[in-house]
């Protein structure tokens, strides 16, 4: 309680509360810090970061599995080698942006899935760069 509040012209007598406990104080008290906040560590551009959910196994060789949570940073410029989210034919697609014979294409990280060449499609947009995938083991 605040006993220095001069405007009330009253003395306040502090009540004992939980924080004044008998026994030994915890030796860790002086070392209490904030929790680890994953947002803070995984996301550097919060205003351009979006979350998506993977369905299917097309990126299994890159370690991205069905149901994984994908963190996408749209502010990053995609470079060859990046895993990217693209909008193709009305759907979100996840692929690795790759280069072969001086030509960019989208590579599926699973032999059972086709790669994607930009040549055959007019309406493709690289939507964002994948910065993390989060897999649940339970």
């Amino acid at each position, binding site marked *: *309680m*605040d006993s220095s*509040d001069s405007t*009330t012209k009253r003395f306040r007598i502090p009540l004992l509360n939980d924080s004044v406990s008998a026994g030994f104080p915890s030796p860790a008290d002086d070392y209490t810090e904030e929790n680890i906040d994953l947002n803070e560590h995984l996301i550097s*551009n919060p*205003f*351009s970061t*979006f*979350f*998506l*959910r*993977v*369905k*299917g196994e*097309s990126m299994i060789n890159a370690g991205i599995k069905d149901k994984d*949570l*994908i963190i996408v940073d*749209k*502010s990053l*410029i995609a470079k060859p080698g990046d895993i990217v*989210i693209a*909008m*193709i034919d*009305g*759907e*979100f*697609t*996840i692929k690795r942006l790759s280069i072969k014979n001086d030509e960019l294409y989208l590579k599926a990280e699973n032999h059972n*899935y086709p790669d994607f060449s930009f040549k055959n499609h007019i*309406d493709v*947009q690289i*939507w964002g760069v994948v910065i993390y995938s989060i897999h649940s083991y339970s």
Partner: protein
Amino acid sequence: MRISSNDAIALIDANNFYASCEQNINPNLRNKPVVILSNNDGCIIARSPEARALKIKMGTPYFKIKEKLNKLDIAVLSSNYSLYGDMSRRLMNLLKNYCEEIEIYSIDEAFVSISRPNDKNLYPWARNIRSLIYQNLGITITVGIGENKVRAKIANKLAKNIDYSAGIFDLARTKNENNYLKRISVDKIWGVGKQTSNWLQSKGIKNAKELRDMEENEITKKLGIVGKRLQLELKGYKCLPIEKKNNSKKEIQVSRSFGTPVTRLEDLTQALATHAIKASEKMRSLNLQSSDIRVFARTSKYSSQNYQRSVHRKLTNATDDTNSILKIVVELSKEIYNPEYKFSKAGVLMQDLTNSEYLQQSVINYKSQKDLKKSSNLMRTIDLLNKRFNNNAITWAITKKPQSWTMNKNFLSRSSTTDIEQIPTIVK
């Protein structure tokens, strides 16, 4: 005093904001005609460029144009304010990094101040911010630059209307300003309302140039200081400063239109109670308490009844406690209810807000302080649980009966950017 030419004000707004938000997060809508409906799926309030090209008009009631939309294969969506609000927050925060001051003017527009570089040319800055916002959010913005707010607004209009402008126009750096000002009719000038516009036209003043050059005394005599200020801004003087965000909210309002008109007291009370719970929650999240609680209800603006009523209750002690507020709101709802009228909208207003941090000490006797503490702990626990689990994991029984009055949102898209259960799926 004419301001130094080093300071500029820009009005930045998002093009087709609601439709762009939807198109950015749903690949299925990309490059397709999309329209957004107002609350209650009433009429068209936003169109994608593709829908504009098909000559779909703003404000058209949905029921009138339903078949046409269907035939043209135009996507129809209810307004999704959790999505637009989130994208707006992202947009404004990104803009902050590229200007000196920012005044958020509406969900999709902001006035910003920026100093001119040595060569006075702000086009590179505008181009940079424009491509950056598109890259980060998939949203196209228009940048209108001028010496002050009125001229920045005009520049923004010109940027939209001139084909070769590429979404950027600097009114302070143009050689034939008169020609451009002539293109802006008086009713399109920021701050000119319907009445003023009629008066000006009756005086033969049709566009921004003519208003700028109008006899000063005549304007001041009719419109007072407001008119004088407007003319000065048109001339390039700065009268209206950038208003930085005021954190102390004056009131908190929660109101909704009804899906179908409400005639029963029970429904009105339930709706108001639902809004009161939301408003109390909002107050607690902002550490605010209210000592003046108002409820209001009205019939449709389009109905012949045209009835509206609002009543309020002043409290001796400010509160943020849902139980106390609910009790008052339920009582007040009986006062505004009138069986003769079909209500189309109702809401609650928390007024006379004070910061609850300063209030803790002012409680009069020990017993009520103990009760207060108990109830505030309960409220805090409920807020925490609702935050952790989904919204309304815990709520009050009054809201749990069937709600026949809720708003029509038959075509609502998902909360793709704010709710982990609703994020988009990558299918391939």
